[in-house]
């Protein structure tokens, strides 16, 4: 049985649509404004930072100045190393943990998983002291590996992968086992390929987390050889003498450029996957 669609309903739907699009456009502009502003200030002299004069001369001077204010080349390499180290270790460790929890329903799997989840309740800042002490005892203060160490595995990663692995139909797993695949083979050929979107999404989130992490690396490192870009960036937060937005924004754009580029490249996969994970 179908109800006749009344004209007012159609108008209502169309209005909804227009309202929705307008809202989306307004939000997009609101979201984009800070970015636009930082691009504007980064490419102009300081005095144009609140004068939006379209004829104002463009300049790259801010970038030169920012680049020279700290050893950013070195910091970039460190940040990339740090992110790669943390993300690859996370992939391996979280995958194995999740696989174990899902496939082998051993006796304490439930409580163990609950215990892992409880870790997400603890804010990382509280752990700075104890983690520092551990690193000091291991002699890993002031090393990139030391910065990465507390982040090599994560409850969130285990959670994400566990939930994804749980959706893999048991029949697929059984079929592979019947074909003679061992447990590693099953993991590699059945579970991992099905979780690819999750890896991509989690990888990007993790990279951006490590890219942005500041306080922990600042505290456990002393040498430029071990410090990430965020530490270089913080030199510009000069509250005692007035903030120079053109310089700050040039430095910010410079340090976030790789992430923004990565996001644009993987945008489709990124957004789609997040939608899917969110719905689950």
């Amino acid at each position, binding site marked *: 049985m179908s109800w006749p669609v009344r004209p007012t309903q159609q108008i209502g739907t169309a209005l909804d649509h227009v309202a929705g699009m307008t809202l989306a456009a307004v939000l997009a502009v609101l979201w984009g404004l800070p970015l636009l502003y930082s691009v504007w200030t980064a490419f102009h002299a*300081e*005095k144009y*930072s*609140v*004068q939006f004069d379209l004829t104002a001369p463009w300049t790259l001077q801010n970038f030169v*100045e920012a680049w020279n*204010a*700290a050893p950013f080349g070195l910091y970039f390499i460190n940040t990339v190393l740090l992110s790669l180290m943390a993300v690859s270790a996370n992939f391996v460790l979280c995958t194995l943990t999740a696989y174990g929890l899902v496939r082998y329903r051993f006796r304490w799997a439930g409580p163990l998983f609950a215990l892992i989840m409880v870790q997400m309740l603890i804010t990382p800042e509280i752990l*700075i*002291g104890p983690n*520092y*002490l551990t690193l*000091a005892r291991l002699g890993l*203060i002031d090393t990139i590996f030391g910065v990465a160490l507390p982040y090599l595995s994560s409850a969130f990663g285990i959670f994400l992968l566990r939930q994804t692995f749980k959706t893999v139909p048991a029949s697929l797993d059984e079929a592979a086992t019947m074909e003679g695949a061992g447990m590693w083979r099953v993991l590699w050929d059945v579970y991992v390929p099905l979780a690819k979107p999750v890896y991509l999404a989690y990888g990007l989130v993790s990279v951006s987390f490590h890219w942005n992490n500041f*306080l922990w690396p*600042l*505290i456990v490192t*002393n*040498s430029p050889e071990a410090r990430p870009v965020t*530490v270089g960036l*913080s*030199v*510009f*937060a*000069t*509250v*005692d*003498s*007035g*903030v*120079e937005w053109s*310089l700050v924004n040039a430095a910010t754009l410079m340090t976030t450029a790789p992430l923004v580029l990565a996001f644009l490249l993987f945008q489709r996969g990124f957004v789609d996957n997040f939608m899917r994970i969110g719905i689950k």
Partner: protein
Amino acid sequence: MKLNRLLGTAALAAGLYGTTVSGVQAADLEFYFPVGVNAPAVETIQEMVDAWDEAHPEHTVKAVYAGNYEETTTKALTAAQAGNAPDVAVLLAIDIFTLVEEDVVAPFSQMATSEEDKAWMDSFIKGFTVDTVFGGETYSIPFQRSTPIFYYNKDAFREAGLDPEKAPESWAEMIEIGKKLVKKDDAGNVVQWGTRVPNLGLAGLWLLGGMVYSMDGTLTTDSGTEVQFNTDATLSAISFLKSLAEEGIMQPGGVTWGDTPKAFIEGNTASMWTSSGNLAFVNDNAEFEWGTAFLPGGNHPGASLGGGNFYIFKDTSDDEKAAALDLVKFMTSPENAAKWAISTGYVATSEAAWETAAIKDYTAQLPQALVARDQLPYAYREVATFQRKRVAQIMADALEAIIAEGADPKASLANAQSEVDKILADYN
């Protein structure tokens, strides 16, 4: 470079041979420093540390940038608790109570004991040494100190028919002159305010402290265990602050610290109350003639002091402490104090530094910088107590509620007072 070092070692060894019997042990120093001013500060501090390193080939020193003040203190405390303390660090002068409570710093007064050392410790300008002392011991040496001053646009003064050489001295004059400086467009919108006094957050509290001091009050006493927030002095300072907005001289509601220098150089306000640390910024960017003066005061001028001092950490060997002491002496020598002040805008900390040729050249070019020094006799330590972060936050929140939300001043002050009294009860 290597040859230099070798020669240096030889010369030093020869020198030592003649003067002292005990040998100097090599020390590896770690020095944490924060940065609160423009980026060249990092370079300048590195240069100064390198110069000391070069002059002392038997020692090494590693200067470690540690973020802003708060982050540097966190880093130093975390490291100290893990038995990994730096040897020397520049930390907030007012963190003395926290550092003493955590028992991580060693008093200078027990390390610098010779006549020469005592003379050195006495060489700093008195205002700066108030917050170096606790329980009769001196725990820190003044280094990067700042104080707020009054900046004003002389062109705007002329335009309003005011004498550009006569800045307001009292609160009453501030209001009278401020009214004349306000400019509106045809639609009645203000295009130029009379003044701008940051009144939000810890910066707002910093300025309020100076106003209270100008009324012969003080927000916190030297003991670190007493807050005098709910007083007539505070009330009159707050009613002055509120009257600025009520009289239409200052933008109503909360006024932020960070945007203030910008508002001034853009002509959005004809004057501002902000740190002497902004001298270089204003000088580089202002396209009008500008001057500086004492902050207008209640009974007399008054201002808070801010900034960081050198601390030496406890958990280091005696040789390292001796080397660290020597480094601190070097960094605070008149020449270096002058160099540091010139490149950063901080206020040079000793009279001798103000007598150096370098600083005289500098103040000849930028006479506005002298005001900060001349105002020092009227300046006093900023809010400092045990549990400083919590205490200061409660006070800043009360100020914000009064200014931005229109809360009743008397009730808000009384509330905040009883809250901080509870926190400090453990220390009395």
